[in-house]
């Protein structure tokens, strides 16, 4: 599963995408664990130390358009992106 990275996740990973060792589909917590396995440097700034959630203001959106519903499983075709809440000053 290829994941697009933005903001701190991209800066810490040093690349715009990362491939996760995931077959088929995965739920949110499984996705975050796989992401932590692929890029350990994302813990703790982007991924919480328990490795089951993203640190606010980072967020997961599928194709940059919607958050997965509770318990929803998703796959590579859903185009997962690790983005963050944009905000200006």
């Amino acid at each position, binding site marked *: 599963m290829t994941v697009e990275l*933005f903001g701190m996740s991209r800066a810490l990973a040093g690349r715009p995408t990362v491939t996760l060792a995931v077959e088929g589909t995965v739920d949110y917590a499984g996705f975050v664990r796989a992401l932590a396995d692929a890029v350990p440097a994302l813990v703790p700034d982007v991924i919480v130390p328990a490795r089951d959630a993203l640190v606010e203001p980072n967020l997961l959106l599928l194709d940059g*358009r919607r958050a997965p519903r509770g318990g929803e499983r998703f796959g590579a075709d859903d185009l997962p992106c690790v983005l963050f809440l*944009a905000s*200006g*000053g």
Partner: protein
Amino acid sequence: MTYAGPRDLLEIDLSERTARRAALDDAVFADALGGVGLAVRLIDERVHGPLDPLGALNPIVFAAGPFASTPVPAANKHALATISPLTGLLNEGLSSSHFSAVLRRCGLAAIVVTGIADDWTTVVIESGTVRFEDAAPLVGRSARETTRALRESYGDRSVRVCAIGVAGERGVRYAAVENDGRQAGRGGTGAVFGAKRLKAVVLRGRGEVRIADPERTATISAALRERAVGPKTAKYRVLGTGANLRVLQRMGQLPTRNFTAATFEGAERVTPERARESRGSYLELRAGCAGCPVQCEHLYVRKDRDRRSAAASEYESVWAFGPNCGVDDLDAVLDAIGLCDELGLDTISAGSAIAFAMECAEHGLIAHDAFGPELRFGNGAVLVPAIEAIAQRRGLGDVLADGVRAASERIGGGAERFAMHAKGLELPGYEPRTLPTYALGLSTCTRGACHNRAATYDRDLRNPSEERADAERARDAIEAEDRAVAWDSLVLCKFVRDCFEDFETEASALWSAVSGVPLDARGLREAAQRTWERKRAINARLGWTPADDILPERFFAEPIPAGSNAGRRIDPERLAELRATYEALRRQAGAAVPVGQA
């Protein structure tokens, strides 16, 4: 209980060259807190009906943040309020850093400036005295040059200065006021300075700022400071707000070419992150406000150029001259931002005015060569000459200097279709057609199109496809408005907003410890609501009606043409229903001012 902090109000009349100083009562601080709350209260007491924003009666109010010059991090800030020459309505901006701290070290809670000086004037405030000095030698200089000259003349590098540049002197209606490299940019407070012939305000003060409970203040501040250097603020510290650009582009929500599109093919070439990742080509400098652990400002300049020309890469500024003008040349964008800071212009309004002119030129309403290089979307070469013409009020620049609403009326021929503003204030870089709650907040915002007062995009961005009931969106908009007032009254930088676990509880405890005036979470919410009601009441006296709470026609009539949000537009009936729900909820909450039609 007695308010512990500096409590004096200094009233300056430039016409009479007089100054009067008096202590504010405890009740004023209990009611309004400080910052925006205090500034709005002081405006409310002085503005009783329509007035000329560039006339003698329009007050300029400086109101110190109540945590400035204390150990509270990200809190050296002050409010700067007046009646905007751009909107004709209340304008309350914020600025920050050393000037804010020294305001309190002069023993002041607030300054009110009225009148019009006979000649260009610098007002010098030392702890106990006020002087009016000739500012004629400073005319034509930037705020930065003015600061340098004043410090040299006093032989004191520690004096703190806020000043206007050429744009404020020439009455550009979106001229900024600058102190310590920070700007109160939006709404044209710099033009009000210029109309009063007020070039600069100088502060010299070293007084002690008393804290009611120093130990508790230190404990809470230390915890907040620790969180403020953690993951919650990493995006600001490491990347800066310019990183928004890639995110909004991926989400199909990047306003492009004066909001005619929501994706920009040149986004990757103009993102500040690209400069950060190209360390061989660009030099990155860091800056931030006094006493702030976040240090969010990231400035860039090509390595083969003078480092003093490094420009700030805030998202709103990069967006205004980049995607919104269709320009994909990062160097041209940074030059435009740097020039705006030098001349004293709000970057959002300046970029929007140029984007508006580009669209007018493409429709044959104005000449393509008005600024020399061709006036068209994508031409970065036109940015600098256009900005210079606006600041000098030269040719078409004179028309654009009044803002897009007034400019569209002067140009005519249907130019109103291209004027992207709310209540006269140019729109910031978020796409209302994809952010329904933000669209509501943008329409109701008392300041006009201000993303910081109507920061309702947070919830929309968390899940852009989420269907939600009108009442839920309206409650979110109200909560965002009131919470912004609370932040701006305390005055804390919104970049540490994620550092609070329970903002109202923690922030009210902090207020109580610093000020000695008891406050709980409910009291903080009530104080914020009182200030919001005052804002709308002031606007109502200035002529605002609910009919003014509208958005540009483009968002209703023109769907987003391409990208992942293609086809989206705002349904006018849906927005009207949302506004009605919003007004009903405001009335239920006991709003004691005109709240419009249900």
